[in-house]
């Protein structure tokens, strides 16, 4: 589904991605992990075209995405921070995003799942962080797209919503969708991820399943395994 | 028999009547027209006697230097055209008690050395020139060394394009006790020009679109002009080297353009300027040397400069005038000596009136720092009304450095004078 070749990205003097190659096949959940500043978000944003790479190419379904925008119709994206125009209501925001995307949307189910009905006519500026994140999730999953990118989807969610979110993700996976997730919650990764892509110093340090990673590091626990990678690197 | 007698008596009375009428005609009125006994105006004039009337009927008369030296009255019927064919003068008059009315006098000669005019009047008195239309004139009415004449209800125009190639509408030289009123003058060099004219009155004229001045005084004392309107002239009125001129109830409008002004005062003494309206002139009053002038109840509205002083100025009093929305109320580049501003209304005044007596509690300073700067560097005018200029004006107002400390109106009015 996605082929990334020789991807370079610098922010000023800071090299964030350094000749990164990555291929993500269709179907399954990919967890993109790595320490802070390893380039997870940059990688995701490069795929979405929000960050313009210095070098390299990104292909989505065999077509380069650089300076393109139409392909984003096939991607659902959940941004890290949910902040919306303060004076629009939830309903208007949903209508607006629907308006921007020329495809079918099924927001009703999601709205009732997260119990957002009472908030539909409230202004976004008056919502709590958690509620905003729920709105954010609704906006992401209401479209039927082949690729779903989630950047820290659990931020600010209460346990019940978290369970709902996991449920949605599983459902999408079953439909054969490709899902990219960045998160710091390892339990979530263990629970749902099919494959792990571990970024370190702007490159891919490891790519494989959770068990492969445990095997490679000799740890039974994912958190420890990851800690080991990072600490070994430091030595 | 009876019949015969009747016829004879009828014939006789007819004869007497005819005789009476023809005597009347020969003594008092001569008609001029193409088919009349007199078709030539000069011949008619020559044939007339003092007190006679020459009635010129409608027609187009080509003439040159019509000369009048008798007390006669020339009256046009239905505006006959008296065409000077661009040769010298149309009328040359040297007579007392004459009148000239109802004529359409056109095309006097043009010259760079001689002042050819539609009507030249010299050394005459008690005359009246009225209801004429003078077109394509070089000079219109040129009156010299004359007294007690009146010029009224005439329309004088030309198609002047530059100062050198055009003359004045009503030009008086060395005259006294004249009246010029209700005339319309346009497209001339000066609408009305007075040189060495005394004790004369100019009123209710409308002088517009003249190349130089609407009205021009040179060395003319004790004159009075009022209720005139000066619109879109090179400059409205120029009063130069004259004393005791009264200027009241005139309108100076839109004398607008580079170096243009409503009223120019040059070396003037003892004048009264009252109840005039100055609106949208580049400079409402340009003062180049003036002493003992009283400005009262004038309204200065939307002029570039309301009063611009470029020469010495002594003992002038500005009392109860309205200064409204002028770019500059007052500007000067010499010392302003012993002039007084009192109880004027200034639209730029931003003071307060706590005791509610209609008079602002803090003095107003009519000279702004920016007007001082513009005087020195005219190009800075492009910064007019910019925030920076407001800031420097304000700081100057708070602590005057460049503008004279004592030049203030200590009793600025809160409301304009109606």
């Amino acid at each position, binding site marked *: 589904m996605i082929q990334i070749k020789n991807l370079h990205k610098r922010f000023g003097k800071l090299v964030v991605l350094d000749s990164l190659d990555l291929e993500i096949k269709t179907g399954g959940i990919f967890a993109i992990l790595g320490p802070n500043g390893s380039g997870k978000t940059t990688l995701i944003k490069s795929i*979405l075209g929000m960050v313009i790479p210095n070098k390299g190419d990104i292909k989505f379904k065999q077509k380069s995405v650089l300076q393109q925008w139409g392909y984003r119709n096939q991607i659902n994206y959940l941004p890290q921070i949910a902040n919306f125009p303060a004076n629009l209501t939830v309903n208007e925001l949903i209508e607006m995003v629907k308006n921007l995307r020329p495809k079918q949307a099924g927001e009703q189910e999601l709205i009732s799942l997260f119990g957002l009905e009472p908030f539909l006519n409230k202004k976004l500026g008056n919502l709590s962080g958690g509620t905003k994140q729920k709105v954010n999730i609704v906006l992401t999953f209401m479209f039927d797209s082949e690729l779903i990118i989630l950047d820290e989807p659990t931020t600010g969610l209460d346990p019940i919503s978290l369970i709902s979110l996991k449920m949605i993700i599983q459902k999408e996976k079953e439909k054969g969708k490709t899902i990219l997730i960045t998160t710091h919650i390892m339990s979530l990764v263990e629970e749902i991820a099919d494959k792990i892509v571990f970024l370190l110093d702007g490159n891919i340090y490891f790519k494989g399943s959770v068990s492969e990673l445990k095997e490679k590091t000799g740890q039974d626990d994912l958190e420890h395994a990851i800690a080991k990678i990072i600490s070994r690197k430091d030595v | 028999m009876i019949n015969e007698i009747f016829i004879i008596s009828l014939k006789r009375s007819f004869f007497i009547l005819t005789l009476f009428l023809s005597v009347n005609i020969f003594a008092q009125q001569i008609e001029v027209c193409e088919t009349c006994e007199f078709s030539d105006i000069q011949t008619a004039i020559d044939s007339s006697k003092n007190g006679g009337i020459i009635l010129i009927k409608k027609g187009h008369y080509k003439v040159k230097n019509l000369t009048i030296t008798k007390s006669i009255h020339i009256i046009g019927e239905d505006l006959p055209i008296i065409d000077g064919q661009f040769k010298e003068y149309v009328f040359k008059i040297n007579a007392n008690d004459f009148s000239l009315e109802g004529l359409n006098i056109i095309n006097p000669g043009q010259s760079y050395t001689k002042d050819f005019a539609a009507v030249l009047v010299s050394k005459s008195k008690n005359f009246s020139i009225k209801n004429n239309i003078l077109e394509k004139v070089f000079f219109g009415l040129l009156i010299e060394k004359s007294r007690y004449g009146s010029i009224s209800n005439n329309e004088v125009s030309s198609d002047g394009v530059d100062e050198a190639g055009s003359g004045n509408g009503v030009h008086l030289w060395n005259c006294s006790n004249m009246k010029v009123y209700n005339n319309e003058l346009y497209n001339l060099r000066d609408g009305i020009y007075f040189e060495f004219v005394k004790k004369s009155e100019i009123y209710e004229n409308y002088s517009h679109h003249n190349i130089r001045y609407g009205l021009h005084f040179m060395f003319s004392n004790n004159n009075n002009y009022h209720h005139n309107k000066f619109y879109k002239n090179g400059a409205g009125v120029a009063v130069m080297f004259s004393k005791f001129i009264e200027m009241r109830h005139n309108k100076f409008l839109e004398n607008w353009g580079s*170096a243009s002004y409503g009223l120019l005062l040059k070396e003037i003494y003892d004048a009264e300027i009252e109840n005039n309206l100055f609106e949208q002139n580049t400079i409402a009053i340009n003062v180049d040397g003036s002493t003992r002038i009283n400005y009262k109840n004038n309204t200065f509205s939307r002029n570039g400069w309301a009063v611009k002083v470029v020469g010495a100025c002594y003992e002038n009093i500005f009392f109860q005038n309205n200064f*409204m929305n002028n770019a500059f109320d007052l500007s000067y580049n010499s010392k302003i000596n012993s002039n007084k501003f009192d109880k004027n209304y200034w639209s730029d005044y931003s003071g307060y009136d706590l005791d509610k007596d209609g008079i602002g509690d803090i003095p107003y300073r009519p000279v702004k720092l920016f007007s001082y700067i513009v005087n020195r*560097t005219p190009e800075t005018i*492009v910064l*007019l*009304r910019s*925030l*920076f200029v407001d800031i420097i004006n304000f700081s100057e107002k708070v602590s005057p450095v460049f503008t004279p400390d004592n030049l203030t109106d200590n009793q600025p009015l809160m409301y304009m004078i109606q």
Partner: protein
Amino acid sequence: MFKILKYSFYDLMRSRWSYVYFIFYLALGFILLFLNNDVNKAVITLMNIIIVLTPLIGTVFGVMYYYNSKEFTELLLAQPIKRSKIFMGQYLGISISLTLSLVLGLGIPFVAYGLFRSSAIFDFSLLLLVGAFLNFIFVALSFNIALSNENKIKGFGYAILMWLFLAVIYDGVFLTFLVFFNEYPLDKFSLIATMFNPIDLSRILILLKLDISALLGYTGAVFRKFFGTNLGMTLSIFILVLWIIFPVWRMNRKLKKKDF
């Protein structure tokens, strides 16, 4: 683009600040007209305010909107829309809503006062036109500054500095220069210097209709020629249009390489 425009316009039209801005102009219009009773004077006072205030408000609104809607913009960027359309939509949304506040805020009192019967209608329309131009110009300029500065505080600082420079400092330097090089012919220089500052240009444009044309004629032939004819008016408006086009063009160019 029109979808984005529509929603950011809705959003702004419901913001408290739009109302404050609208009510400010409304109050100003009523106070000027009904306390003064003189449309001509009101137009001049308004000019002073519009020339200074619209650029300031445009700048502040532009920068604030950009930084405040940053996350939302990111959400939009992930949608299948061209980047330039998102920003053009937002840009137009702000500019139009600010212009609407201005036009309605001042228009209502003037119409109530009987503007249509007054001869000042042309001056007044020109005033609103110039105000609209300044809104569009300064929102575009502030967007440029915001796009070039990730740091909100810095961006805000630069934007205010830009306003201060164009509204005050520029004229100060200009004036000093004119006074200092007094003996040289300066009219061409002044003319060009005016063109390089949209605030000065707008001011001149209004003054041409109010009172300056003949005053400028007082100085030199170049001024007289330029400002005495319709050429000055036409050219000034043309350059104001350029003042919108250039920042918008740069904004779009900057966008192509910008990371979010």
